[in-house]
Structure formats: structure tokens, C-alpha cells
């Protein structure tokens, strides 16, 4: 790893060795953000005073001999996590001035670990998007090519990490929103098994699919953040009670004898030749490291996009019904009665993509269509999940491309919503099944744009996946490459 890529690990070591204080470190990052954020658009909200106060508290903890591994290390939160006293917008006009009165579980855990919050990162509105073009607060630019998207919906977090404006960030993934932007910006991102990370205080999009996860430069850093983020929370009814685990425990074990499944459906029509080439090279590297490759099939995978675009909008239409201008969020200035207040507040507060998905969801849940669309999609979901269960009899992990192409230009996929939705073709099935999935950088296309390798594991197999990724990162240096648009 070049010294141009500070990691949670390296910064932790610097702080422990007394090479710098948390306040100095935070100030350094604040300066970098001030320089680059206007161009890149990664951050929606920065509050230097609040950040420096956190850093000061961290320095005091260290002086008192109470510093933990991540005390005083700076990072960023996707603006989907409620943070007390901070503006939390979810990329939407609906929450433009919403100052959260409480902390999300993930925010509490990171704070208790001593991490210092640099700000709230930009995102597609209400997490609906694959390019960070739907944010009310403007687009995010890919540090590798400023005329291209960073991916989405966690585009701000991905670009911030890629541009070295934060060593790591939190993201959320409902249909690929951690993995796809990680792939398009050349960083690592992990979506954990559904239920491992509490969704309390994480603004809901599609409750049976949403999951928070870490985004960083290395598998090791993903593990460090997972150790902070994961864990039971009684306030999330879907949070799983499991014994605590150390997500770093399989790092360094190598991949001798690992069976890697390659689904033929991941290498069919629609995959760019450049991406295919990088993935094949990555798999070849794994063979060199001692793994074996097994051909597998996920026969119902093609259905995952239509299934998702029934289920996710349906759940979104329900979740977003809370935005009515009554208790929080945008309220229209002019209305004649309550009904008009609702209709205007929501028409004004939501952007076009969000409205589109609410309408789709409303339709598929409505009388006469519920069985044909929603229930049918839930049945197909079970078929898709079963395919993975079958596949994991033959292999230990599944690999393939994260996205069908590399970072595309602004506006390129905005004309036809279906074109944008197809960016998620390899990631969506993982959310439908509730499995863990990650993306790590594995090469570049002929235009110098990053390519991501997707690693999908069986339920609760995150630690092994991180070990598998770590082995690749010991042998290669894709994850250490720095974009031209990065902070100096």
C-alpha cells in the first residue's frame, strides 16, 4: 500500500504512536474536504466545530489511557444515518432541514468506538439510484474521471474514500448500493448478511433488503469497521441475536483449497469485455494462490431485477408514507386543506425517481394487482434464494463482476429508468437472498476506470470472505491505486 492511502489501521497506529493528535488529523481531513468538496460533491454536511470537538474528546481519552483501536480515527457517515444534532437529509429536499433528535444504532456504535465524524456524505435520494445523480444536493463526481458517476446510492461515501477525503465511510446496500459504487470508484465495500447490522435510525427504503455496511480501502479495514457496526440491537425487530465475533479472525489464512463458484449467468450477455477480462485475471490470481474454480449456475438470476423492482418500490411506498409534512420534514407553503397539504408536501419534497418508485409500489400493492405482482415476486424471491443455497453445496464462495461495466458518464442512463436498473444485475440477487456480498478492486478498463470483483458468501460467512479478499490484497495492489482527483 502506498503512503497515499491512509487506512483505519495506519491512522490508528499513527495515533497510538503519538505521531499526531486526533485534532491534527481531523483538521487535515477538514482542509482536504474544503479543497475538493466543491468539485466532487461528496459531502452534504460538514460541521468542523462538531468534528473537532469529537477529536478533542478522543485525544483526552487517549491521554487518560482509555483509547481503543479506532479512537480518534476520522471517517464519514452516509447521510442516511440519523445523527443527533446533525442535519440528516437522505439526499432529499423532504429532509433538507431535518436536524435529527436521535442517533442511529450505527452512529452510536461508531461514536462509542471513538471514531471522529468528518461529515455526512451525499447519496441518491432515499437510497434510490445507482449513480448518485438523483440527490437533491447535486451529483457526486467520480475522482477517477470527473465527467463520470461514482455509482450509487452510496456515491458520496465511495467518492470520499476514493478521493482520500476519509479513510473509510459507512454505506447502505438495498440492491447493490455499497458494492456497485465501491466497484466504480476502486475501493472495497461489504454488505453484511441481512440482520447483522441494526437498521435503527437508518432511514428506511426497503426494510427487508436494506443493510448497512463499511466502505474502505482494504479488507482489513472493512473488518475493523464490521467489528464496530455489527451486533444485536433490540430496537430493530429484524436484528439477529448471535454470539459476538471478530471479523478479522480469518485474515492471513490464505486460500489453499478454497472452492470458488463462478455462476455462468454472471458471464453472459451484457457484461463488458474489459470487466470480464479483469475478473478472469482476478480468478486466475486466486488459482495461483491455491484456490480451485467450480462452474455453477444460478438459473433464476435473470428474474432478480424484475422481482426487485416490484418488492423494493412496494416496501418504499409503505416506508415513505410517513413523509406527510406533519411531524417532520418538508411541508408545503400553500394548501387549502389537509389532503392538499399531504399531496403538495410530498410532490414538492420528493424527486422524480423517488416518486416513480412510490407509484410503482403503490400500484403493485393495490387491489387487484397484489397477487399478480407482489406475492408472485415474493415467491420468485424464494426461488432465487434457493439457487444460492444449492450453489453453496458445490463451493465456498461465489465470485463474479460487481457491475456489468465501469463508471458511466452523467446522463448516460437517465433517459430510460430500466437501463439504470440493469446496473444492479449482479448485485440485486444477493439482497433478495439476504446473503453477504462484497466488492474489491481488481483492475482497470482500457480507459483507466476501476473494475470491482464481487465476492458472495454464505449466510454469516463475512469473516471468511474478508480473509479471501485479504489474500488477494496481499498478492496485488489494485486497492492501493490513487485517482488523479484525489486529495494530495
Amino acid at each position: 500500500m502506498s503512503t497515499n492511502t491512509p487506512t483505519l489501521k495506519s491512522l490508528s497506529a499513527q495515533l497510538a504512536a503519538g505521531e499526531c493528535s486526533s485534532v491534527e488529523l481531523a483538521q487535515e481531513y477538514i482542509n482536504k474536504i474544503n479543497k475538493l468538496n466543491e468539485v466532487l460533491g461528496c459531502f452534504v454536511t460538514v460541521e468542523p466545530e462538531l468534528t473537532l470537538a469529537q477529536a478533542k474528546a478522543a485525544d483526552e481519552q487517549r491521554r487518560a489511557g482509555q483509547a481503543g483501536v479506532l479512537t480518534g480515527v476520522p471517517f464519514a457517515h452516509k447521510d442516511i444515518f440519523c445523527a443527533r444534532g446533525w442535519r440528516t437529509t437522505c439526499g432529499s429536499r423532504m429532509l433538507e432541514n431535518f436536524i435529527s433528535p436521535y442517533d442511529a444504532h450505527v452512529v452510536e456504535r461508531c461514536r462509542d468506538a471513538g471514531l471522529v465524524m468528518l461529515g455526512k456524505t451525499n447519496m441518491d435520494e432515499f437510497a434510490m439510484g445507482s449513480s448518485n445523480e438523483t440527490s437533491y444536493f447535486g451529483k457526486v463526481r467520480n475522482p477517477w474521471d470527473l465527467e463520470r458517476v461514482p455509482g450509487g446510492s452510496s456515491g458520496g461515501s465511495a467518492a470520499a474514500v476514493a478521493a482520500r477525503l476519509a479513510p473509510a465511510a459507512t454505506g447502505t446496500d438495498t440492491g447493490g448500493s455499497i458494492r456497485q459504487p465501491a466497484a466504480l470508484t476502486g475501493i472495497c465495500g461489504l454488505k453484511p448478511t441481512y440482520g447483522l447490522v441494526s437498521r435503527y435510525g437508518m432511514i428506511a427504503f426497503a426494510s427487508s433488503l436494506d443493510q448497512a455496511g463499511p466502505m474502505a480501502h482494504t479488507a482489513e479495514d472493512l473488518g475493523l469497521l464490521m467489528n464496530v457496526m455489527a451486533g444485536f440491537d433490540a430496537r430493530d425487530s429484524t436484528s439477529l441475536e448471535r454470539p459476538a465475533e471478530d471479523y478479522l479472525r480469518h485474515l492471513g489464512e490464505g486460500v489453499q483449497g478454497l472452492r470458488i463458484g463462478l455462476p455462468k449467468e454472471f458471464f453472459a450477455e451484457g457484461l463488458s469485455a474489459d470487466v470480464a477480462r479483469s475478473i478472469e485475471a482476478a480468478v486466475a490470481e486466486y488459482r495461483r494462490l491455491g484456490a480451485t474454480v467450480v462452474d455453477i449456475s444460478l438459473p433464476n438470476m435473470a428474474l432478480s431485477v424484475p422481482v426487485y423492482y416490484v418488492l423494493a418500490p412496494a416496501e418504499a411506498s409503505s416506508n415513505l408514507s410517513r413523509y406527510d409534512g406533519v411531524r417532520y420534514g418538508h411541508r408545503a407553503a400553500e394548501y387549502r386543506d389537509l389532503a392538499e397539504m399531504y399531496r403538495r408536501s410530498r410532490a414538492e419534497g420528493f424527486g422524480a425517481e423517488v416518486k416513480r418508485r412510490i407509484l410503482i409500489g403503490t400500484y403493485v400493492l393495490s387491489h387487484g394487482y397484489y397477487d399478480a405482482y407482489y406475492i408472485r415476486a415474493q415467491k420468485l424471491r424464494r426461488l432465487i434464494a434457493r439457487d444460492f443455497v444449492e450453489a453453496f453445496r458445490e463451493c465456498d464462495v461465489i465470485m463474479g463482476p460487481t457491475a456489468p461495466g465501469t463508471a458511466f458518464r452523467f446522463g448516460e442512463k437517465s433517459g430510460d429508468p430500466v437501463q439504470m436498473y440493469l446496473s444492479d444485475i449482479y448485485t440485486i440477487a444477493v439482497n433478495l437472498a439476504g446473503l453477504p456480498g462484497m466488492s474489491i478492486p481488481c483492475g482497470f478498463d482500457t480507459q483507466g476506470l476501476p473494475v470491482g470483483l464481487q465476492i458472495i458468501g454464505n449466510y454469516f460467512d463475512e469473516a471468511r470472505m474478508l480473509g479471501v479478499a485479504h489474500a488477494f490484497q496481499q498478492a496485488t495492489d489494485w486497492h492501493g491505486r490513487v485517482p488523479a482527483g484525489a486529495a494530495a
Partner: protein
Amino acid sequence: MSLTLDDVQRAADLARIEIGEAEALVTLDQLTRVFAMIEQMQAVDVSGIEPMAHAQDLVLRLRPDAVTEADQRGAFQAVAPETEAGLYLVPKVIE
């Protein structure tokens, strides 16, 4: 199946979102494309398959019926558009 402008308007009514004619037309075109893609679902035989609500087939956790939360109304209402005496104010519904 083909959507009509009426379908769009009906969904907008159910979703309590005001949508003008011009916007409805654009939305109709986009939704038609999305529903054409969703139609692929109809080709598959799903007889005998149980719907899957989410990954882990969890049973909803229960807890004792005891008060555990503190009153935070002040904090939560600080972000509301209009309140009075602890109530949220909205336009009159009943004449």
C-alpha cells in the same frame, strides 16, 4: 399489461402525491417501460412456492409489556413544522 393515464393518477391519489398532467404523461411512459420489464416475472411457474418475506424466516420478537422509553416529546417536536401544547397542528379536517 398496459398502463393508462388513469392508472397513474389513481396510484398518485393513493400515494397522496399531487401530479400534474404533463408530469403524469412522462411518468406514464417511464412506468410503462418498467412494467414491461417486470412482465418477465409472469413467465415462470410458481405453483407450490411459498412467498419469502425476508431472508431469515424470523418470528417477531416479543418483550414484556412494560414502559422502557423516556418521554422525549420536546426533542422530537422541536423538528415539527407546527406544534402547540404538545400537539401537532394540521389544517382543519372536520368543518
